[in-house]
């Protein structure tokens, strides 16, 4: 049992109170997932490629931050700006910096493991913050309610099969694909099979959370030239088990729901916005009473886009 939530301002102006709406929704969904909370917030395209890097859970994080910046510099990747906040280092790089070079520089700093330095998100529109604890803890640590943007997705986690730490929290960035994030409620039962196939192809996994595979799956299909809707439609057949998941890209919010309706999801749309949440209580507490909400049938997916095109810039 987890809680997922998504909100998209149809105008795409970048000035919608995305952070505060998501915080209210996640607070209402707090009982579904007391282990950790997180959001993936999308804004207008930045002039930089923005990285959010997990420095570690314990230890001298300030030194690790210096190490990261030095290593990037050593690879000829000059940071425009670097700022540490708790376990995160936020780094702004020139927009055309090649992401594989960045990833390998960061991953070379520590061996893979629970306290490894890890790239949590990368993109020109996307920033992910997540941590162990409640939505209220997330708010006091990062003031997410003050963030405006175009859209975002969020998650409250009840851990069932993998450990509780920052890396295993959601949202998941689709590693290697800028500006693609996913939140998932459910259990992908063919996760181990798919993971073995992907690992044989050289794809690296960063956690043991089955939800991580959804972003990787979508990213691979996007790399083959499919659009997000095509990739998500294929996932309705290729993923087994119970799932409702949300995916977000610049200017795009989407959900997919498993054929057997094993996980709840409620959708509300007005002329101005789209909101999706595991339970209607989240929509009501965040957005009030003056709209209808309904639960879509199984094997359903929907993709919404902002009216302002952002994809070309990202």
């Amino acid at each position, binding site marked *: 049992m987890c809680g997922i939530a998504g909100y998209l301002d149809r105008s795409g102006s970048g000035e919608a109170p995305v952070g505060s709406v998501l915080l209210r929704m996640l607070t209402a969904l707090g009982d579904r997932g007391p282990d950790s909370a997180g959001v993936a917030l999308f804004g207008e395209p930045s002039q930089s490629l923005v990285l959010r890097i997990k420095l570690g859970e314990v230890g001298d994080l300030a030194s690790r931050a210096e190490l990261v910046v030095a290593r990037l510099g050593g690879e000829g990747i000059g940071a425009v700006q670097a700022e540490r906040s708790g376990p995160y280092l936020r780094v702004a790089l020139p927009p055309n910096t090649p992401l594989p070079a960045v990833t390998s520089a960061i991953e070379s700093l520590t061996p893979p493991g629970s306290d490894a330095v890890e790239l949590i998100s990368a993109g020109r529109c996307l920033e992910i913050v997540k941590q162990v604890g409640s939505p209220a803890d997330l708010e006091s640590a990062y003031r997410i309610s003050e963030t405006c943007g175009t859209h975002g997705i969020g998650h409250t986690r009840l851990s069932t099969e993998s450990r509780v730490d920052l890396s295993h929290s959601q949202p998941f960035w689709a590693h290697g694909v800028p500006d693609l994030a996913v939140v998932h409620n459910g259990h992908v039962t063919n996760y181990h099979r798919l993971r073995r196939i992907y690992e044989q192809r050289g794809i690296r996994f960063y956690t043991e959370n089955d939800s991580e595979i959804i972003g990787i799956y979508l990213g691979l299909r996007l790399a083959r030239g499919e659009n997000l809707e095509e990739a998500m439609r294929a996932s309705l057949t290729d993923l087994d088990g119970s799932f409702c998941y949300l995916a977000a890209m610049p200017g795009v919010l989407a959900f997919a729901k498993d054929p057997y309706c094993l996980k709840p999801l*409620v959708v509300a749309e007005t002329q101005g916005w789209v909101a999706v949440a595991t339970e209607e209580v989240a929509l009501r507490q965040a957005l009030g009473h003056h709209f209808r909400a*309904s*639960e879509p*049938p199984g094997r359903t997916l929907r993709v919404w886009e902002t009216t302002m095109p952002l994809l070309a810039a990202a």
Partner: protein
Amino acid sequence: MNETVVDCRDRSTREINREIRGLIAGGCLQIRVTEPEARHNLGVALLHPASVHFEGSVGYYCAGMSDQAHVEVSGSAGWGLAECMLGGSVVVRGSAGSGAAASIRGGTVVVHGDVGARAGCAMKGGTLIVGGNSGYMTGFMGQKGTIIVCGDAGAALGDSMYETEIYVGGSICELGNDAVIAEPTAQELADLHAALTQHGFHAGRHWKKVLSGRKLWNFDRTEALWREAL
């Protein structure tokens, strides 16, 4: 008749339910509940013939395990609406999530909009009327009772049923295991029309009746699967 208002704001679910039950025990027969905000477990275990009207949406298990009460919801309802209800009635003006009227033993559940998956699953009596469409596996393992779907029915309709009867006014996506279509009798159609008219639905459709084919009721060792396995 005097109506008493219960405001849900700034109160726990337990406090709200205690007040509703206390009012009914004190003889109040008409209760209006404001600002329910789709919260879970509202109006459960109401065991007296009072009328409780939720102004807005309710969450999971609303009116569950109730008997004799009449519950009305002006918005929509979450999962497990009226689950295990023994008698009385529940009317939802909007839609309901999965498991509406699951395991009810009696009474009537009316949803004017759509219902999610597994509506009326394991019903042991009573009636579920759906004004819109019904989701995946409606009527799954139903033992008794009646389900009426005015719109379209989703996949696996009536899977593995005992004696629940399902009437569908629209299309059927796919029948479940051992579900078969039968022609309703004139008496059954008359009963159907009476039930629909009573709740304000238009009954003029070509109705299909779905019931158990009874092939799963007993172990059949001559079945091909078992011939190989045994």
